[in-house]
């Protein structure tokens, strides 16, 4: 059975709409399914639904590249890829069944595989973009190696739609691993977990995910039958059934509370900064979810000192800045970049920071 995606091109309509908004001095909030709308600052602009713009432009599994309109449903695309035993290497979370490709790229959120396979940015090869002047621009392409012009397509990843509407995107895909195994280890401290996972990184083990929570350390191995079997025999631990999407989609009990949830990003080998606090640690130590710290300012100071940053991910007070503050010169540079794409500030104004 083959998945069939809708094929609807509303590029012209969107272009006219943006020209109209630009002329009238308006602003829009770009909305797909709304599954990740919580991410970033809240907006007061007029919602502009772009989810109808969908369809596959090109997919030839042997090229390892798929080109899609941004309104395509992530779930459908992943099913389609799976039919050809391929997948997105960055394991994107959906946070809702309607999640779109555009939202995936704009938020740049990646899953457990991120630390071992790369980010969405690493896999994006090209975009077609509608800018704030109503122009359709194309950057990058559909080939893996491409150094013609500045790499604008990857700049769109994580820009939260503030630079324009992503119309199409070309993304590199990877083969599905032949097999996967999850190993569990009990009574492990945060520091032991971090040290151990990073030590393992110096050996060519096929590790594709790691997680620590509540004294339990998990590792996922993915790869060829032989490679995984060999590694699993060497690493010991208890082989368990574990659904990694539970952590990726934040459906674990840990995420069920409605207290402030912070995403702490740190150089992975940083020792435990929050001993005794409620944490869930992914990405070999680079991504640490922290519950219940309402005083995010203090957390930010401490984390910044260690070379990291903190995002107020969910349930924080409305006046808490969502993203880690930028240094003034960097903020100015980024405002100028925003203005170069969107001179009058139409798209998602203030979604990332004031002025961008």
């Amino acid at each position, binding site marked *: 059975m083959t998945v069939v995606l809708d094929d609807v091109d509303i590029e012209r309509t969107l272009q006219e709409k943006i020209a109209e908004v630009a002329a009238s001095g308006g602003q829009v909030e770009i909305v797909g399914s709304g599954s990740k709308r919580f991410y970033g600052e809240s907006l007061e602009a007029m919602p502009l639904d772009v989810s109808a713009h969908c369809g596959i432009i090109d997919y*030839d599994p*042997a*090229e*390892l*590249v798929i080109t899609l309109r941004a309104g395509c449903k992530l779930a459908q695309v992943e099913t389609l890829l799976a039919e050809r035993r391929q997948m997105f290497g960055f394991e994107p979370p959906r946070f809702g069944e309607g999640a779109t490709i555009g939202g995936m790229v704009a938020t*740049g959120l990646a899953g457990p595989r991120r630390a071992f396979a*790369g980010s969405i940015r*690493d896999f994006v090869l090209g975009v077609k973009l509608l800018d704030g002047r109503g*122009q359709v*621009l*194309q950057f990058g*392409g*559909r*080939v*893996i*190696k*491409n*150094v*013609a*012009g*500045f*790499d*604008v*397509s*990857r*700049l769109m990843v*994580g*820009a939260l739609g503030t*630079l324009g509407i992503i119309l199409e995107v070309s993304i590199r895909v990877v*083969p*599905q691993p*032949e097999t996967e195994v999850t190993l569990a280890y009990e009574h492990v401290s945060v520091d032991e977990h971090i*040290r151990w996972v990073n030590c393992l*990184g*110096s050996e*060519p083990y096929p590790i594709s995910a790691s997680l620590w929570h509540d004294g339990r350390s998990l590792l996922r191995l993915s*790869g*060829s039958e*032989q*490679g995984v079997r*060999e*590694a699993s025999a060497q690493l010991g631990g208890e082989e368990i059934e574990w659904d990694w999407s539970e952590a990726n989609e934040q459906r674990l009990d840990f995420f069920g509370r409605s207290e402030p949830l912070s995403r702490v*990003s740190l*150089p*992975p080998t940083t020792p435990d900064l929050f001993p005794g606090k409620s944490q869930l640690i992914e*990405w070999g130590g*680079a991504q640490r979810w922290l519950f219940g710290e309402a005083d995010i300012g203090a957390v930010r100071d401490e984390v910044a000192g260690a*070379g*990291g*940053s903190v*995002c107020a991910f969910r349930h924080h007070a409305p006046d808490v800045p969502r993203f*880690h503050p930028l*240094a003034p*010169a*960097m903020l100015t*540079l*980024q405002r100028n*970049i925003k203005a*170069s794409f969107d001179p009058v500030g139409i798209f998602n104004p203030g979604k990332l920071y004031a002025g*961008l």
Partner: protein
Amino acid sequence: MSELRRQQLAVRFREFLPEDNVIDQRTSLATYECDGLSAYREQPLLVLLPEDTAQVRQVMRLCRELRLPVVGRGAGTSLSGGALPHADGVVLSLAKMNRILEVDELARTAVVEPGVRNLAISEAVVAKGLYYAPDPSSQIACSIGGNVAENAGGVHCLKYGLTLHNILALKVVGADGEMFEIDQRSLHTDGYDLMPLLIGSEGMLGIVVEVTVKLLPIPRCARVVMGVFDSVEKAGDSVAAIIAEGIIPAGIEMMDNPAIRAAEDFVHANYPIEAEAILICELDGTEQEVSAQIERVERVLRAGGAIETRLAKDEAERLLFWSGRKAAFPAVGRISPDYYCIDGTIPRKSLAAVLAEVRRLSEQYGLPVANVFHAGDGNLHPLILYDANIEGELERTEELGSKILKLCIHHGGTITGEHGVGIEKLGEMCVQFSDAERNQFHALRECFDPLKILNPGKAIPTLARCAEHNAMHVRGGELPFPELERF
């Protein structure tokens, strides 16, 4: 007059740089007048060799004050003229900033200065069982700063990525002399991700003064299989078939008959000189994993019509198989007075069509072409054989090269996979990008460098230049300027 200006400027820079680190003598300046693309030459006013970040900042501040163009230079191995000097500017060489500052074994990172050679990083960490993955063919000489400026690739990109995928942090001195940092050691970015903008920006957005690279564990085992084919099409299809099997080779390279012959003549790798194409496919991983995969690859190659498959029986033979491919450029250099290397990328499925058209063009121009191909990632390097001493032959070679690049665009590819635009491919940039897209590049550049003193005249052509280029290259009966929207 210009000599006077040169001496006056030298005095200003010597206020903070050691005497010998300001090169102002014509004979010494000649060393810097070109990079790896030696057909283009220009003498700069001065060459400056700062020894640390503070000196780089002073250089940039003075250059800004004097509105002096600054061309950054690493080892000068660019194949696109990215480090070609500006006649009225300075060359800022990072060659003296060549220290490895820190290796963090647990985090598998190294912090290095921009002048450190690519291969020197791997050499410094080999005892720890680690290496730096991107391996451009110039890796013995090229610097990491230059790799960042060009987003250098190499033979192992398909599996291990480009420079972009192997850099965790950059410290950059901007055009205003101020320093900024892009730190992604935490695998996260706050605000816009400037890393992909900086990497591959050809020295136009800032001067990189410190690079944090990712190190990988050296694979336990690497083995190579060679497939011999009587047509390039079968070889190309076999690459697709290997990937359809779900195998990502560490490297997969293709050579056509002229390239095979030249290489065999040079290094005696025991290549089959009658073959129309060979594929060299390397797999890495653990012993068992590689054994299992290499069998599958051999099966795919035979099913794809390989006349013969050869498995390197030991490490010596593996290196021998590679030696011909790695020596392909100098090998071609031996059979022709000059050669011109093209760097287009195409979707792999277009390979047969593109190679057929390249052959037709080669005959039409009377210039032989040998092809080597990073088959896994679609990066094609046709080498045009010519003789610069024959009047007009360089011009015809460039014209042929330009046609090949346009062919790559036509097939949905790009004009440069890993060598950069530099001074060389400005004309083709006018074809690949629209005015609006190029304007966006210019606008981005001005965000970083409002006075446009960093590597001016490279990478992104001006509107005027493109109007001129496109006017000269009217396609099949179309009116001139069909897509130009201005005046």
